[in-house]
């Protein structure tokens, strides 16, 4: 049996959660929560935590040197640095429009990387 202590972020209450798992990694108990959302958060954080990754990608010939990006959906938490490695090597030509897919299935997560702002072409 293993125990993880977490702070719930589902609301401003910030309940201190205690999540117990058995030898196989299966959640056996969540305590300390004051609502159902807390239990769900505790289970997910311990079994399959996910995050949205936001960053910037280089733009060639753009009105600004970088374009802000995010993963279109959540990716597994342990793939964050693999996603960042791809982001750092990506460079796209201007123009870029908000919502454009800049990398498909990034780092094998099944999630696309999209632009979160628009960067026009630099006028020569």
């Amino acid at each position, binding site marked *: 049996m293993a125990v993880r202590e977490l*702070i719930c972020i589902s609301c401003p209450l910030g309940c201190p959660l205690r999540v117990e798992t058995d030898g196989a990694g299966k959640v056996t108990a969540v305590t300390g929560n004051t609502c159902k959302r807390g239990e769900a958060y505790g289970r997910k954080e311990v079994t399959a935590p996910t995050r949205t990754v*936001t960053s*910037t990608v280089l733009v060639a010939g753009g009105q600004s040197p*970088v374009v*802000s990006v995010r993963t279109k959906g959540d990716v597994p938490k342990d793939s964050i640095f693999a996603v*960042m490695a791809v982001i750092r090597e990506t460079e796209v030509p201007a123009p870029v429009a*908000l919502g454009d897919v800049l990398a498909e299935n990034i780092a094998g997560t099944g999630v696309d990387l999209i632009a979160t702002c628009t960067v026009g072409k630099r006028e020569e």
Partner: protein
Amino acid sequence: MSIERDIVIIGGGPAGLAAAIAAREAGVEDILILEREKELGGILNQCIHNGFGLHTFKEELTGPEYAARYVERVRELAIPYRLSTTVVDLRREGDSTIVTSVSKADGLTEIQAKAVILAMGCRERPRGALNIPGTRPAGIFSAGTAQRLVNLEGWMPGRRVVILGSGDIGLIMARRMTLEGAKVLCVAELMPYSGGLKRNIVQCLDDYGIPLRLSHTVVDIQGKERVEGVTIAKVGEDLKPIPGTEEQFDCDTLLLSVGLLPENELSKQAGVELSPVTGGPKVSETLETGVPGVFACGNVLHVHDLVDYVSEEAAAAGRNAARLVLEGAPAAGKPIPLIPSGAVRYTVPSTLDPARMEGDVIIRFRVGRNLRKAAVTVSAGGRELLRRKRPVMAPGEMEQIALKKEWLTGGETEITLDAREEGEET
């Protein structure tokens, strides 16, 4: 050049955009937004992280995406705006307000406005306001400056980082610098609690194993040309460093995230009275300042933690300014002062005039300490108008309540807004 406009909005960030949209939707055609940057959107453009708009759009957007929704609406409504335009003077003349702006494209312009909406936002408290000892090398940045360098200009300010202050921008930058390959050694916070949102502490520090040292401050900065190290120490209850608790970090960068200050230089020029607590204008229930026809909203009024509430507040300011332009000043009764009590530090607005109230008025406020099992009460003349339970309240999270017109008789001499823990003495 001299022109006239019904409503001039100073600032094209989230507050200015929402105010402009609301004023146009309320029927005012003649609006002008003045923005000093090259683009609309304000600080949202550099806030590339997600978590914006949960309240307004029921989805998690990044800052630029949230801004884009308002910019798009401004374009749909064909609301005029001027970019790269700085307002240099604001003054009252007769029944109108004169806004003087300057830009490369239009030169000096004097705009006579029936109503002005202040939406200039806030700025970061700089190092000079902190009295940190040590040398003055390169490598010390406010967290927002670092955010701009990384997210808009594509530069990394450093590789080994200590952050002083656990405000939200500092927490966000701890994660951002880590993702870009820097090592964030610790975040030191003077107070025994963080001023940042809990989700940011969990997702920006805990996720990356970055230590948060509460009740710690920077006592020395080493390095002559560039930062070479930073010493932090524990502070006592008097917030003074305790000798013998020093800890040294080898680093090349120190980020400061030590609070935001509403940017009110223009407001002061116009004679707007400011609150010593918020640093923003004192406003009535219509969000009008003490100077007739001058309204305020967003971070220039008081620093917010969620942009959704900035948009809501700014929309109210826009509607109220539109009402002034279209219907003239409403018949005023007697403004009743709102008095903060218990743990409540301030309220926005700071006065209420029941004669002018239309339906509910939202009162926004902050507490000065952490409370558990708290009650928020509003009372006037010994009468309790409202009581709300709050399981927890924190200085970093803005609170709000709605006050109904029918609860007030107009005869009140003052209204008290109180927050305290259960069983705490009055």
